[in-house]
C-alpha cells in the first residue's frame, strides 16, 4: 500500500444480479474512496444498493464491472485464498442480526477471529478481555448469546469485529434490530472506538439517530450516489473527494 492510497477505493463499480428473465442493476458506476480513520455512513432507502456496496467492499461479493481496492490492492485480481486472508486480517464485520455463534459464550465469540488467525492463547485471552472491556461487557464474558439482550449481543458483535484490530469495520444496518436506548449506546460505542482507536467504520443505515453522529454520509438512490457529504464540525479522518456518478 502506498501512502497516497486510500484505505478503500471504489472505482466505477457496478453490480448486476441476473434474475429469472431479467437483470437487476443494484449498483451503477459507483465511485468514491475512504481514508483511514473515517466514520462513514452509506444511507438510502431499501433497495438502493447499500448492502450490495458493503458486500463488495467486504470482499463478500465481486463487482460486475469496476474495481474495489483495499489498501491499494484490486480485490478482483486476488486469489480466493488471498481474499479470505484479506477479510480475516483487514476487515471486521457487524451484522444487522448480530450473527453470533450460539454455542459459544460472548468471550468465545469475540475470540473467534483470533482463532482463525491462529493467534496464541495468551494473546487471545488478553485481546478478548480488552475488546469486551471496550464494549462494556467484561462481566458478561461467560454468557451465551441467548442470555444477552439485543444491545449486548450487538456490542459483542462489535467487540468481535475489532478484536483482531482490522483496518476497516463494516457494519450492515447495525442498529436496525435495536431499540432507541441500545441503538444510541451502540452509536456512541462505535464513535468512541473510531476516535480512540482510529478504526475506520463504514456502515449502511437509514437510522437518522446514527446519521446524526456520522462525519460523512454517502446517500444512494437506485444504485447510484446521490450525495457524498461531510457534516460540519465532523472533520475526523481524511475525507476524500466525492465522486458522484
Amino acid at each position, binding site marked *: 500500500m502506498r501512502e497516497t492510497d486510500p484505505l478503500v477505493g471504489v472505482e466505477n463499480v457496478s453490480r448486476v444480479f441476473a434474475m429469472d428473465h431479467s437483470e437487476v442493476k443494484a449498483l451503477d458506476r459507483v465511485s468514491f474512496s475512504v481514508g483511514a480513520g473515517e466514520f462513514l455512513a452509506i444511507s438510502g432507502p431499501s433497495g438502493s444498493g447499500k448492502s450490495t456496496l458493503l458486500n463488495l467492499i467486504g470482499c463478500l461479493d465481486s463487482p460486475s464491472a469496476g474495481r474495489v481496492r483495499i489498501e491499494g490492492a484490486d480485490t478482483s485480481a486476488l486469489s480466493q485464498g488471498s481474499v479470505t486472508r484479506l477479510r480475516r486480517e483487514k476487515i471486521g464485520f457487524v*451484522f444487522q442480526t448480530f450473527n453470533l455463534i450460539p454455542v459459544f459464550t460472548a468471550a468465545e465469540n469475540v475470540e473467534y477471529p483470533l482463532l*482463525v488467525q491462529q493467534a496464541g492463547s495468551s494473546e487471545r485471552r488478553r485481546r478478548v478481555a480488552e475488546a469486551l472491556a471496550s464494549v462494556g461487557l467484561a462481566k458478561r464474558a461467560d454468557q451465551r448469546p441467548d442470555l444477552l439482550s439485543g444491545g449486548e449481543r450487538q456490542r459483542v458483535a462489535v467487540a*468481535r469485529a475489532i478484536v483482531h484490530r482490522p483496518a476497516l469495520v463494516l457494519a450492515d444496518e447495525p442498529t436496525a434490530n435495536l431499540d432507541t436506548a441500545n441503538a444510541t449506546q451502540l452509536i456512541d460505542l462505535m464513535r468512541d472506538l473510531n476516535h480512540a482507536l482510529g478504526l475506520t467504520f463504514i456502515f449502511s443505515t437509514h437510522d437518522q439517530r446514527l446519521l446524526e453522529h456520522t462525519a460523512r454520509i454517502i446517500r444512494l438512490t437506485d444504485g447510484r450516489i446521490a450525495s457524498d457529504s461531510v457534516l460540519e464540525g465532523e472533520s475526523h479522518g481524511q475525507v476524500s473527494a466525492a465522486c458522484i456518478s
Partner: protein
Amino acid sequence: MGKFLLLAFRNVFRNRRRTAMTLMMVGGGVAALLLAGGYFRFMSNGLRESTIRNGLGHLQIFTAEHFRRDEVRVLDTGIENWRQVASVANAMPHVKGIAPRVEFYGMVSNGLKSSVFIGSAVDPAAEASLGFDPSLVNGTNFTKKADGDVEALIGVGLAKSMNVKVGDGLTVLAVTSDGALNGVDVQIAGIVRTGVADLDARYLRITLASAQRLLQSDRVTNLVVGLDSTANTDIVYAELAPRLGRFSQQLTMKKWIDLATYYRQVRSMFDGIFVFMGVIVFFMVLMASVNTLLMSMFERMREIGTMLAMGTPRAWIVGLFITEATLLGLMGAALGVAGGNLLGSLLNASGLHLPPPPGYTNSIAFRVLHIPGIMVGASLLVTVSLALASIFPAIRASRLRITKALAHV
C-alpha cells in the same frame, strides 16, 4: 484446535433430540453387530471345540507319503515306528496325549447280508484320555475285555441296513497289508452317530489291537495329538515340526483347521452373515446421517456464512462438519458398545436356550461372547460411516456463497 473441537462438540448437542435419534441409530447398529458377532463367535467356538473333541484333535501326524498317493495296500503309507513318534510328541509342553488311529475299509457280514464299511481303529484308553468319546445311540463304548473278544461300534445307518443290534455278532473282512484276505468276528458293543448321515451308513470302529491283527500290520495311519488348549496349536506345531524331521520316515503334520472342512464352511457362513450385517449397518448409518447432517447444515447457513465472512478457510468448515460427524460416531459407538455388552450380559444371565438344530437332540445355550475386536471394528465402522456421510454436507457448506448464506433466513 481445542476451541475448534469445543465448537464441534457443542454443535453436536445443538439439537438434542436429533442428536439423540442419531446416537440411538448408531448405537443400535453397533449393539446389533456386537450381539450378532458375539453369538456367532460363541457358536463357531463351540463348533470348533466339539469338532476337536469329537476326535479330530488339535494336530494329526501322518507320513508325507500319505498325501502323495493312494495306498496300494492297506497301511503301506502308514507310520512305522509310531510309538517312538508318539513318545516324542507326548514329551512336548501343552500335549495332553496321543491317540494312534488306523483307517481301513472292507466288508462286514451278518451271515445274511454283507455291506461295505469304512473302518476306524482306535486305542480306547488313549481316546478316553483325550476326551474323544463316541456319540453313542445305544450300548456302550469298548469294554476292557481280553484281546480275543473283539468288540465293535457301528454307525446307526449301518446297524439299520444290516438289521443288527447291540450284542449281535458280525464278521469283518479286510485285505491285509500283504494282500491276503483276513477276517475277524466282532460283537457289537454300541451303536454310534458320527454326525454325518452318509458316514453313519458305513461306519465301523474297532480297537487298534484288533485292527492290527486283522490287517497283519503294526503300522498306524496317523497319530492324533490332543493339547491342553486350542490356543496352543500353533506353538506346539512350530516346536514339534522340526523334531519330526529327525525320523527316517518322512512325516508331516496337519493342524485341526486344515482338517475341519465342516467347521471352515460354517465359520465362513457366519463370517459372511456378519459382514453382510456390517454392510447393512454401514449404509443405514450413512444414508440416515447424510440427511441429518444436511439438515444441520441448512439450519446453520447464516452462521457458516458469518464464519466464512470473517475469513474462516473453507477447509475449516469441511473439517468442522467432519469432526462433528466423527464425534457423533464415537459417542454412538461408545453407547452401542455399552448397550450391546449390557444386553449381551443380560441375555447370558437369562439362561436362554435355542431349539436343537436338525440332527441334534440337545438344545443349545444362547450365549453372547464379548469380543474386543468386534467392539473396535463395529465402532470404527460406524464412525467411518458417519465421517463419510458428512463429506457431502461439509463440502456443500464450505462452498456456500457468503452473501447468499448471510441472507438465509
